[in-house]
């Protein structure tokens, strides 16, 4: 057995031991698992048939609001993250000293969960979809900017060198040497974040940040399972449609249109 495998086995055992210890510490009630599953099936039974209590119009409207929230956040983050991402790249701003605060800022923005951001913004700007939009924007801003910085730093240096050798200044060599290389990937990432924002936007309502989650959390609280089922189906439908469209667009982009 090689040293590498040996090391792998040791690590595997360590992780297992830690998991067992953690389970014991948390007092995971494994005995409760069986009845829990049974109860889950019971709830599934109570979901049938789904119904809307005459509020289908309201639900659909809140779903449109959810999509609008995701779209607004994606567009704002997509536009704002672009210059930030460029400035965070070593290729564009060689000084580590100037880049560091920007990169750390991106890390902070994306490491706070969307629900936490939503709570912060609900406090700052009040209940409603605006808080949700801001929460999603913050996360995407951090992630998209960071991804762009990394794409730029991994882009091939060839075109940049070719342009510099032709006398191009910094602006020109970034514009023509780097942008054409990173723009398709960036657009594709923005689309991907649109998909992810839709999913996130559906739960932000739980903390009062607008969207269909407002109704979902309300119906969950009063155990109105048949309306919950309607809401979940509506969300599924929307997420599927948006995912399909966006994936189609991303594939076209990657193939170079």
């Amino acid at each position: 057995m090689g040293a590498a495998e040996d090391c792998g086995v040791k690590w595997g055992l360590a992780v297992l031991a830690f998991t067992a210890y953690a389970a014991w510490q948390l007092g995971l009630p494994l005995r409760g698992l069986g009845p829990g599953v049974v109860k889950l099936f019971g709830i599934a039974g109570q979901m049938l048939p789904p119904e809307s209590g005459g509020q289908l119009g309201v639900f659909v409207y809140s779903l449109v609001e959810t999509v609008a929230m995701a779209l607004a956040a994606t567009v704002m983050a997509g536009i704002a993250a672009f210059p930030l991402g460029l400035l965070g790249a070593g290729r564009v701003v060689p000084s580590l000293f100037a880049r560091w605060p920007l990169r750390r800022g991106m890390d902070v923005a994306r490491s706070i969960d969307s629900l936490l951001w939503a709570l912060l913004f609900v406090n700052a700007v009040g209940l409603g979809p605006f808080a949700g939009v801001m929460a999603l924007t913050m996360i995407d801003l951090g992630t998209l900017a960071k991804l762009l910085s990394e794409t730029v730093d991994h882009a091939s240096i060839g075109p940049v060198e070719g342009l510099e050798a032709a006398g191009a200044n910094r602006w020109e060599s970034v514009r023509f040497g780097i942008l054409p290389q990173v723009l398709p990937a960036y657009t594709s990432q923005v689309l991907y974040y649109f998909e992810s924002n839709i999913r996130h936007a559906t739960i932000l309502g739980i903390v009062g940040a607008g969207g269909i989650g407002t109704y979902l959390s309300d119906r969950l609280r009063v155990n109105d399972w048949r309306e919950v089922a309607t809401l979940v189906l509506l969300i599924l439908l929307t997420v599927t449609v948006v995912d399909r469209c966006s994936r189609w667009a991303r594939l076209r982009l990657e193939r170079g249109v």
Partner: protein
Amino acid sequence: MWRTRSCGAYSLLEITGLRKSYGGTTALDGLSVSFAAGQMVGIVGRSGAGKSTLLRCVNRLIEPDSGGIVYGGRDILALRGSALHDWRAECGMIFQQFHLVDRLDAVTNVMLGAVRRRRTLPLLFKIFPEADRRRAMELLERLDLAAQSGQMVRTLSGGQQQRVAIARALMQGVKILLADEPVASLDPENARVVMEALRGLQREDGVTVLCNLHQLELARTYCDRVIGLAKGKVIFDGRPAEMTERIYTAAV
């Protein structure tokens, strides 16, 4: 040791005592050589001899540690800011891997050769003067690429891409062209076409061409003068006919 000799009436480019090392590796070891105007000079030598480093020092893509580079009486190593950009525009460079903007069409790539003479802002929006477009088309036609002018560069063959790069250099209005292994990734037929094009630049436009080559045969066929490098020094300098395989087997 071969004495540096300049094969022309006056020397256009004088390099003296050029030194460059990367960490522990010495790429250029006090290299001195001068070039006359209007010649096509082949620079040959083993891999790692310092050929690329030499050319990159000349257009300041690399800063040498010490030494002097003087072009037409101008101290090239003292250039800063826009004067440096002007020098790079005057001194073209083409690369083994072409280094074009892959995702733009051929004619736009060629128009970018005029980058130094145009205002930055319109360029950033891809707004080029009509005259530049016409000139770029002429140059592509001259390099037998008229039919490919609208094609995305990455869909062109290697030989075609290298000719687009030459057209871009012509667009720059180069007086001297540095070619770093311009045909090393091309098949023999494309290599011939590209070498002919470089020869044409030298003969018809009076451009001084410094061309790194690793095939002695190409240097023999196309160059007026050959310089052999080893370990960052000149070990041969003369006419192609005088050159032997000795350059490669020379003490390493």
